[in-house]
């Protein structure tokens, strides 16, 4: 059987790629995709931990399903906000959305 650490390293790599996407990309949609990658890394972790550590309990799987549901709800709100901005500004690039400065 594949050792647990393979899954954890893969999930950590996926999380880091998502993190890089959030920090480096300027397009709001791409940032959102980075966040989704981070959440997917979490799901891989949860399912791997469930399979290797607590295979008799359902908590790990149930948690993964909850993460899906929450991610979907978040994206629904996020895309609505992006569309709302796009209609007004014709851009979703974070550098152009600069009225409120950091």
């Amino acid at each position: 059987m594949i050792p647990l650490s393979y899954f954890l390293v893969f999930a950590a790599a996926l999380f880091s790629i998502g993190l890089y996407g959030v920090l480096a990309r300027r397009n709001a949609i791409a940032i959102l995709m980075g966040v989704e990658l981070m959440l997917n890394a979490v799901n891989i972790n949860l399912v791997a931990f469930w399979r290797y550590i607590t295979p008799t309990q359902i908590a790990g799987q149930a948690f993964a399903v909850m993460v899906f549901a929450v991610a979907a709800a978040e994206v629904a709100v996020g895309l609505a906000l992006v569309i709302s901005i796009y209609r007004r500004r014709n851009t979703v690039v974070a550098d152009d959305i600069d009225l409120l400065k950091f």
Partner: protein
Amino acid sequence: MNVQDLYAISPLIVLVTWATLLILVDVYIIRDRNGGTPILAALGLLVAMGFAIAQTGQQYTAFNGMAVVDGFAIFLQVLFLGSGLVGIALAYNYLQRMGIERSEYYILLLYSISGMMLMAIAADLIVVFLALELLSIPLYVLAGFGRPKVEPEEAALKYFLLGAFAGGFVVYGIALAFGATATTSLAGIVQAVNAGSANLTLLSIGAALILIGLGFKVAAVPFHMWTPDVYQGAPSAVTAFMSVGAKAGGFAALLRVFVSALPELAADLSPVLWVLAALTMILGNVVAIAQGNIKRLLAYSSIAHAGYILMALVVFGNTQVSSDAVAAALFYLVAYAVTSFGAWAVVIALEKAEQKGLALDDYAGLGRKYPGLAAAMAVFMLSFTGVPPTLGFVGKLYLFRTVLEGGFIWLAVIGVLTSLVSAYYYLRIVVIMYMRDGDPQVHAEPWLRLTAGVTAVATVVLSLYAGPLFAWASQAVLKLF
């Protein structure tokens, strides 16, 4: 699931049902904008508060240890419901004046509060995550409530992106904690650590990630960058609610998770929290000096106050002090809530459309033209600074005391010094109000006057009778078993 489980979450059930029915009532029965919806929403909050108060003194877990009813949960639930009531009072006329009167505001407010209440009773990391998102998602929409204007939309997008980002950290941390201890229940984590079956390295990494994610929520430095922008862009009534509710929700999670589940990790995490608290206090107070916009100034002030509350968390591993620290943090949250809502009520009274009326210079002459409002604002500024006799002073006193008991003398010194720095910008507002001539334009509607008046009186009077309030907060110690 039995009757007691349902009774444990009865305030939550009432609030969520009420909010859901209110959507239908608003669409099919009330129809005209802003008719009875705010009153009905306030009524729902009061009913839920009744259910929460009815549980006072009880102590039990529900849903197989997923939820817990204890003093901490009840105290925070009452605080959240109360801040919802103020949130409605602040918004009632403000939304009309700004031309964004939509009754969704009140419904989203109720949903967001239900998330905060779930956070207060959470005894399992899954519930913590769910509560965090339930709290945040309605707030993202509320932050953009001023649409179709540019600033609120930007604020909402910024808040959303950073909030979702932070949520990713929290849930990754929770997944690692699950892997380290084979459970997500807070009580189970304590058992696993005590039994020696937990992987402490993995648990520490998980706890650190949870800390990062929640650090975003409570606006701790270095995770604070979004705060001034979002606070400035969002409608002021939303900002007021966000600065109190979202912060208190984040701290509810931090206190619950760290104090009750992870005291064994204190050796690793206390220094990190020490640095976070010190940085937050220093940066929040120093940068606030340079602000010319009252909303940005209050945003940095809220960052600084998050730093003061974080001080209570630094001692979380010391079991002799930690229950005192929780009580001090809860007391400070109440003090901050009362003061902050009052200050925002004054800001809302002076705000005009198109982000006007928010410069500090717009407060010139307020003392002569509107002495009542100016006096209230002066009280709030003194309370933020921590000058007696105000709630802010008593709150800081309790916080510094617990930090000293925990043996963190330098942190208390930093806290006192940064309070001195903060006096500069808080008192500058008082000076502008009373010493400079000007012609401020004020829309002090009855609800705003009431909020400012009641919070100003409460800030002073409650500080004189702080003992009973602190005793109530002391009963709110965390119990999981």
